[in-house]
């Protein structure tokens, strides 16, 4: 990561105004969004949006032609171009041909994308933004930090300073007064402007219509008062059918600002009369700028399902800490990372793609049903493909891909780590876990890994068998979790086998874009885990479970190693996470927990992969309550703890504050125990609590349930 990038992160995190404003907003957004979607089947709605947008993405040429035909039949002039330079030239030519001196604009990300304002200003034309947020950042000489709320990073005091300069009068920071000032300042500009430029929220091929949505009413003025109107529309805004406008209108305002509908929606089809009786000169520019290329890419085609609501920014635990400017100058947040890689260049996304912790929060709320984390991983993979891995990572993965060497080094670490051990924690682990952040202690490498301890466990001979996939953390740091799991399954009449040849699940490599390494890990594990005929392959680490259940298949498919896919599918069919299996066994009456004793309060932290990929959240809660705990839900129980595998090592400045927030939410419940299903989360949160000194026990669900087995 470049130093200046790291600096921009630190600057953002230390900007209390920014993190305060974004933090408050993200909390309010979650509540308001849920309220706006009350009574609506979101999954059904986004299914329809994904379908209609995906259809459009597969038929961009056809829809562009249909749009052009219909819009021209109504008297609009349509210009289509792939080249941002040609788009800028076209707009300038229209302006020059009509002796345009001043332009008013309503909000358009497409014009930001091609840096239109400086280009026109250089040609001597005055360009005025009229969206309040856009005007503020124009006066400040900045770029938008959020697609929907461009000036969310600024305080009212900063705005009052800017406006005071503009109107030559000392203004207070009273917001309604500032808004009045904007109204009064901009009104004459609307009336004088020779040209209006807008974006377009939707372009309807069937009718040649452009749909514009605003709350302030500026788009109505921009499209009504000047005699020329240019609408710059990215071709991903095309939809085929007019009736589908209702579908987008249902989701976009709800997802963007938690409104049922924006104050104003205009559906413009062909020119309308001007005030002097002449007809409006209406130009619609369909801008490609690599969108067609994106549509032809089997992975990235789905990114064109974006309706530009920015909800992926609003729910992102990273975005709310660092804000938009760390991401770049135009599109920000999750979808912004993807758009920057395409509309700008892959290289530009090299640093920002690393901001994604892969928690999946954005995937759950995206109204276009885009798997944003997956696409960011794909960017990572392509960057690695293009540039290769950094040397240090290469060295690490050479080790990880050689199980014997890897495990040998982990064993050595248990000895080497000793001098630093304080109680159950060490400050530093050798090798790839080196250089860790303050604010969190790390577990010592266990003196005896699970694979050795397993041999000493005396199990009854049982008919049904399950293979246990431990994963590195349980194997080498928390072997007691593995032992607990074996006891629980034995109690339910299942014998546990531990295939020795199992190795790292490959998630660390995959999340760093090293798919070849991940595929090597996958092959080793498939061979190991399918060696004996078992009913289940069980794991008590959700990240590993996801790898076994989904990612092996995807990694092979991405690399074209399809010969391994059937085996990967066989493994996937047997894979189950700890809480799901135990809940099933309890429900079937094969396992009983000691009931009746009140064990006191507990709170539960949802691990990202368990909740959002495996869709498991009720099972562990029900088990813990059945065991006698009183569940107290914490605030934001399903927000990432900041671990994210090596994320906490690469970006400790971001991981740290996320962890602190999690610790605070846990402590505020007053529960003396916090449970979770992921050893990675245990490592992060237990380490955090250790440093914090709070008297809260951090336990894996498996550790708590084993204590409540019926004798």
């Amino acid at each position, binding site marked *: 990561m470049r130093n200046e990038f790291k600096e921009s992160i630190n600057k953002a995190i230390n900007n209390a105004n920014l993190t305060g404003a974004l933090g408050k907003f993200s909390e309010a957004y979650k509540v308001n969004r849920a309220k706006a979607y009350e009574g609506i089947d979101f999954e059904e709605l986004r299914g329809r949006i994904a379908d209609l947008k995906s259809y459009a993405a597969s038929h961009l040429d056809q829809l562009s032609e249909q749009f052009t035909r219909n819009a021209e039949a109504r008297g609009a002039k349509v210009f289509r171009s792939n080249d941002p330079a040609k788009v800028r030239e076209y707009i300038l030519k229209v302006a020059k041909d009509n002796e345009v001196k001043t332009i008013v604009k309503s909000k358009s990300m497409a014009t930001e994308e091609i840096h239109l304002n400086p280009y026109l200003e250089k040609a001597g034309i005055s360009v005025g933004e009229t969206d309040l947020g856009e005007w503020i950042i124009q006066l400040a000489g900045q770029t938008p930090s959020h697609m929907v709320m461009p000036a969310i990073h600024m305080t009212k005091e900063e705005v009052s300073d800017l406006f005071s300069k503009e109107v030559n009068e000392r203004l207070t920071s009273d917001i309604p007064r500032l808004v009045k000032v904007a109204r009064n300042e901009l009104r004459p500009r609307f009336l004088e402007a020779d040209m209006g430029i807008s974006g377009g929220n939707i372009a309807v091929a069937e009718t040649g*219509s452009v749909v514009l949505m605003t*709350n302030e009413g500026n788009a109505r003025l921009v499209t009504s008062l000047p005699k020329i109107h240019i609408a710059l529309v990215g071709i991903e805004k095309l939809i085929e059918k007019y009736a589908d406008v*209702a579908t987008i209108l249902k989701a976009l305002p709800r997802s963007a600002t938690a409104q049922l509908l924006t104050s*104003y929606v205009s559906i413009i089809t062909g020119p309308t009369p001007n005030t002097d009786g002449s007809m409006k000169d209406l130009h619609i520019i369909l801008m490609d700028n690599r969108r067609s290329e994106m549509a032809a890419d089997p992975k990235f085609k789905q990114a064109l399902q974006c309706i530009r609501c920015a909800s992926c920014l609003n729910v992102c635990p990273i975005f709310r800490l660092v804000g938009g400017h760390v991401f770049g100058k135009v599109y920000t947040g999750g979808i912004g990372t993807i758009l920057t890689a395409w509309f700008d260049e892959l290289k530009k996304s090299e640093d920002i793609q690393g901001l994604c912790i892969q928690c999946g929060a954005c995937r759950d709320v995206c109204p276009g049903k885009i798997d944003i984390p997956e696409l960011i991983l794909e960017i990572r993979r392509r960057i690695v493909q293009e540039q290769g891995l950094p040397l240090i990572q290469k060295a690490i993965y050479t080790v990880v891909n050689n199980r014997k060497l890897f495990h040998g080094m982990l064993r050595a670490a248990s000895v080497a780590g000793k001098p630093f051990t304080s109680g159950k924690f060490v400050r530093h682990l050798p090798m790839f876990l080196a250089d860790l952040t303050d604010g969190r202690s790390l577990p010592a490498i266990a003196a005896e890994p699970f694979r050795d301890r397993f041999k000493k466990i005396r199990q009854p001979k049982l008919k049904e068998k399950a293979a246990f996939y431990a994963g590195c953390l349980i194997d080498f740091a928390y072997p007691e979790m593995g032992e607990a799991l074996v006891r629980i399954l034995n109690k339910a009449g299942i014998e546990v086998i531990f295939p020795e040849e199992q190795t790292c699940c490959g998630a660390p490599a995959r999340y760093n874009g090293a798919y070849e390494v991940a595929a090597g890990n996958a092959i080793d594990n498939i061979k190991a885990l399918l060696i004996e005929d078992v009913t289940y392959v069980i794991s008590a680490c959700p990240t590993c479970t996801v790898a076994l259940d989904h990612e092996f298949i995807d990694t092979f498919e991405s690399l074209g190693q399809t010969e391994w896919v059937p085996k990967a599918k066989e493994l996937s069919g047997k894979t189950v996470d700890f809480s799901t299996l135990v809940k099933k066994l309890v429900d079937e009456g094969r396992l009983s927990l000691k009931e009746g004793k009140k064990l006191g309060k507990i709170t539960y932290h949802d691990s990202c992969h368990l909740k959002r990929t495996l869709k498991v959240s009720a099972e562990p809660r029900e088990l813990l309550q059945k065991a006698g705990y009183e569940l107290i839900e914490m605030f934001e129980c399903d927000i990432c703890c900041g671990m994210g595998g090596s994320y906490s090592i690469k970006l400790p400045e971001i991981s740290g504050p996320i962890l602190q927030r999690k610790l605070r939410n846990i402590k505020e419940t007053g529960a003396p125990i916090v449970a979770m299903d992921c050893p990675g989360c245990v490592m992060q949160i237990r380490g955090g609590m250790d440093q914090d000194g709070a008297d809260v026990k951090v336990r894996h669900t498996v550790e708590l349930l084993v204590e409540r087995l019926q004798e």
Partner: protein
Amino acid sequence: MLYEQFKMRAEGVSAEVYRFVTKTEALDFVIRLLQNEGVADEANAFALWADSPFLEGMDRQALKKIAGLKFEVTRELASEAKFGISQMEWALTDTGTLVDDSSAIEQRLVSSLPSIHIALVPTSGILPDMPTLLSMVHPKDSSYLAMITGPSRTADIERVLTIGVHGPERLIIVFVDDLEGKFNPSKSPLI
């Protein structure tokens, strides 16, 4: 029922909603409202009324005699008017939205430049939702389909909701039961 739902939604986004049986009652209400708000002939005090079916059959000469009431819509007058009055044809209950074919520039001038917009709506124009509207109103019949949901608003400074940026800061909706719109009741899914 649909009216009540509309009223609830529209008031939820800060619109003011009234309903009258006859055009005469509605007109009385509008005139009283204007006078209470200090309508007068000078700039930033007068009302500008865009031509609409509501005015058909009304005694315009009598109306023109009312101080501060103007009917010649120009951009200059619209930018100086305090009140803009127009007819909107449809109302959507599920979002509290008014809809109109605003291809005529006058419709947009009076509903976007003055600080108070008074919208007269035939009660028969109430529709349940957007899909219903789009199934009835097609762009081939309208170059500028305008939808208005509450007054102009922003939250661009510190996410604080503030009413009245570039558009009206008040939206007063007056339903009139005996007002016939462009809307053909026989097509209504409600009747």
